[in-house]
């Protein structure tokens, strides 16, 4: 690993916005905050995966993966981050290095690849992702990118987050560092307003941002840049002119918020678009901070009025389901911000949370859960549940539905219990007031699907396939009767 990358990782771990980190001794801090992975018992993506997740939603940029075929060939076009403009971010670009590149280095291939992309697709910028193999053989992607930027006159951005550097979460931060080092602050916006904000850590999965944007639009709040959902390179480059930063998705890109505060004095707050109360708090926070930074004070009143209208409408729509869903028990297997923001939302829908996983949650997240769930929250926080335990819990009907990411869906489905996708591969947007109604509707649709009764009907024979008892009704005779009636004939005698 290059000295540069090592320094970068140390820097990422030196997070002033993280109180856990600030509570550590100098020595502890040096170790970093990633848990050591357990070989043979690990799950989840690598740092490269994390960096790609964080940056790929910038939609008008070509994302070029410098490495062997596995890194891009096995993973491209697998997320539903939506774009309202360019579609080039969905194109898979990779140098697909071969054995000779491993031996002689892949820098030349990388340089040529950048040129080919610019010639054929002409994006405003190219993001170049480092991977394990190319990092190990010593390809200097920073140097290649610098040379390419000079030669072609377009920003070519190195993203140095090889897979072995750590887990996905670290990759999110290293991706964010690339934006801080090479993109943010490199351009000026055409104009600014007192209502300019950045939304950081929102990936616009299945278009969720668009469930929230109309609210901001109505208040006259401008999203100067969203990092990175539905993003445009030039907008991200001007992000430093925003008045306020909102950080979504817990700590995944906190370094952008803290460093923008240090460099440009932009205040930030942590908010969520999931859940009715959280959405309202978020709007209030944005309004408050904008007014503090100089926006006219009427924004506060307008925001309150909008919240009142939107909340009333959402409650009314959810009330329809609340009756049906009251007391339904939910097992929530996710992480970070969703471990609490969705909890509040589900409680709003009358449901009971019988377990929420906190494996990927920070101490703050856990505090929030306690705050929301009140007494006995500890009992429902699951640190590390094996699939077998989840399966047993569902099979024994200690929960009515599981909400989780796509990978663990079969734990529920094989136990013949309802399951709903709430992670990145989902097809339904759950943002804002609209999204929460959608989530509750989807849970209702899942739980009350008659298929669950069907798939739980035991086969009318034993393990050995021997018939247990004679069929109860003479099906033959019945059918013959129906057919005869239809043809206006008398039923014949049918031997049963």
């Amino acid at each position, binding site marked *: 690993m290059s000295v540069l990358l090592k320094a970068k990782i140390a820097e990422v771990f030196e997070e002033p916005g993280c109180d856990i980190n600030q509570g550590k001794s100098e020595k502890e801090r040096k170790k970093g905050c990633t848990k050591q992975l357990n070989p043979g018992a690990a799950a989840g993506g690598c740092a490269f995966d994390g960096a790609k997740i964080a940056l790929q939603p910038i939609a008008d940029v070509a994302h070029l993966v410098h490495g062997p075929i596995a890194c891009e*060939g096995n993973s491209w076009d697998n997320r539903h981050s939506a774009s309202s403009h360019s579609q080039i971010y*969905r194109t*898979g670009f990779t140098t697909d290095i071969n054995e000779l590149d491993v031996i002689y280095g892949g820098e030349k291939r990388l340089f040529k690849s950048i040129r080919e992309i610019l010639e054929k697709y002409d994006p405003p910028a190219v993001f170049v992702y480092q991977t394990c193999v190319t990092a190990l053989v010593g390809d200097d992607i920073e140097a290649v990118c610098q040379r390419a930027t000079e030669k072609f006159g377009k920003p070519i951005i190195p993203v140095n987050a090889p897979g072995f550097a750590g887990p996905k979460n670290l990759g999110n931060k290293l991706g964010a560092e690339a934006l801080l080092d090479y993109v943010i602050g490199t351009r000026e916006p055409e104009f600014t307003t007192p209502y300019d904000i950045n939304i950081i850590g929102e990936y616009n999965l299945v278009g969720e941002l668009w469930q929230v944007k109309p609210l901001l639009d109505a208040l006259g709040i401008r999203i100067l840049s969203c990092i990175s959902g539905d993003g445009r390179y030039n907008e991200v480059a001007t992000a430093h002119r925003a008045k306020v930063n909102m950080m979504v998705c817990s700590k995944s890109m906190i370094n952008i918020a803290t460093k923008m505060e240090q460099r440009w004095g932009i205040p930030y707050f942590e908010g969520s678009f999931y859940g009715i109360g959280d959405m309202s708090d978020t709007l209030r926070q944005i309004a408050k901070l904008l007014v503090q930074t100089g926006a006219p004070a009427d924004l506060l009143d307008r925001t309150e009025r909008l919240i009142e209208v939107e909340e009333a409408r959402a409650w009314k729509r959810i009330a329809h389901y609340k009756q049906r869903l009251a007391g339904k028990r939910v097992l929530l297997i996710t992480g970070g911000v969703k471990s609490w923001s969705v909890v509040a939302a589900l409680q709003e829908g009358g449901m009971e949370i019988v377990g929420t996983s906190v494996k990927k949650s920070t101490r703050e997240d856990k505090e929030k859960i306690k705050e929301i769930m009140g007494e006995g929250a500890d009992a429902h926080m699951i640190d590390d549940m094996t699939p077998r335990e989840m399966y047993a819990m569902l099979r024994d009907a200690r929960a009515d539905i599981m909400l989780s990411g796509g990978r663990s869906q079969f734990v529920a489905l094989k136990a013949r219990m309802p399951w709903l996708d709430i992670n990145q591969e989902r097809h339904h947007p759950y943002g804002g007031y609209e999204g929460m109604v959608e989530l509750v509707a989807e849970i209702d649709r899942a739980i009350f699907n008659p298929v669950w009764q069907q798939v739980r009907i035991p086969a009318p024979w034993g393990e050995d396939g021997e018939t247990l008892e004679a069929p109860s009704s003479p099906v033959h005779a019945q059918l013959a009767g129906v057919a005869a009636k239809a043809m206006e004939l008398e039923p014949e005698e049918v031997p049963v």
Partner: protein
Amino acid sequence: MANVVESKKSCSVNPLKMSQPLGASLAFLGLDACMPVMHGSQGCTSFGLVLLVRHFKEAIPLQTTAMNEVTSILGGYDNIEAALLNIRKRAAPKIIAICSTGLTETKGDDVDGYIVTVRKRKPELADTEIVYVSTPDYMGGFEDGYAHAVTAIVRTLVKPLPLKADQVTLLPGSHLSPADIDELREIIEAFGLTAIVLPDISGSLDGHIPPDWRGTTLGGTTLEQIRAAGASAFTMGVGEQTREAALALQEIAGTPLEIFERLTGLECNDHLLQRLAHISGRPVPPKYRRQRSQLLDAMLDGHFYTGGTKVAIAAEPDLLLAVGSLLHEMGAELRCCVSTTKSASHALLPAETVILGDLEDLERGAAECDVLITHSHGRQAADRLGKPLLRIGFPVFDRIGNAHRCQVGYRGTMALIFEMANTMMERIAHHHATDWPLTPEAMRAATHGAAVRAPESIPPSLAEASA
């Protein structure tokens, strides 16, 4: 007799290819009570896992040695040992199957050596078989990884045994679905023979509901069956990719072999039945004689829609040959063929050239074609071109039921013909009155010199009536 051309590009755009370790993992997923492991960083496993889940819609047991910066440089012995012990403790598989990745191959980890050391140091692993295959990401592709993994299984676990005259070994290629394997097994058993299928994803990835949760694969070739392959009277491989493992079986147990370059089509299935009749000494069952006749009828019904169709197809070598050849036999023209890696199969393909390239190459070539045929990643190209996409191979993540799609045997061939013909039928052009305008020259010829006549006046009586 296709001429193989390698794409000259530095940058692969919209990859067709997937990595060797992923193919190797699929092979390992066809073993019962097995835990496949990728020796690499956790992302290698994570990406592969997600893709397999999206295709099969099944829980996929797949582990990682979770290599980090330090272990990558110092060597992964400790990670391999820890992974083996952890997996044995948590999932208790009968077989742990390891494949290497680009990361560990670049470093040069000697995993064969590691396993010898682990065996010495950790006697508790004595009840677990360990298979290892070297599959660097930067060489070959999915099909190659699968082929090497099957060979590694054979070389590690098969020993020569006394001959069983009524037992054959079936080596399915990576392009065969669980339904394909079931179909072939049924055909073989119809001749009174027993088939050992290696590997057998029809037991593990066919989408069934097991009575309890298991951390390992849910079925597939059992360890006993793998070992018993040493007694088979014959090895049948489907796809050129199986030759390597079939030769290994021949070397170990002296088993004669035949590689069927494909089993999608008429003649190749005739040949299969002929071969089975010969091995078993039994006649071809009436069921298959009937199916053959049905296939002939399907070919006749289907040829109206496939004949003259210009096809752009991208797939791994053996699948390309299977589907491409059938379409050629049905009168389609293989205008643009793209594949991933070199293979003896390409020499048999009835097309002018095969490009070893990506889906960008396919998209370019498809501009003049009527239909695109490739995996689900072709959807963007098909959208842009406004042309139909027939999904084949792996991954097909935007359709369900992939495990139950059968494309081999008479019946599977018939099903594929119907799919293809129906895809084309949906696109039959509707014509309009102005579709065939005459050329200006024809217009002139037709009208030149015609006497100019005033419109005839309408008789007063009629004019009144119409008013």
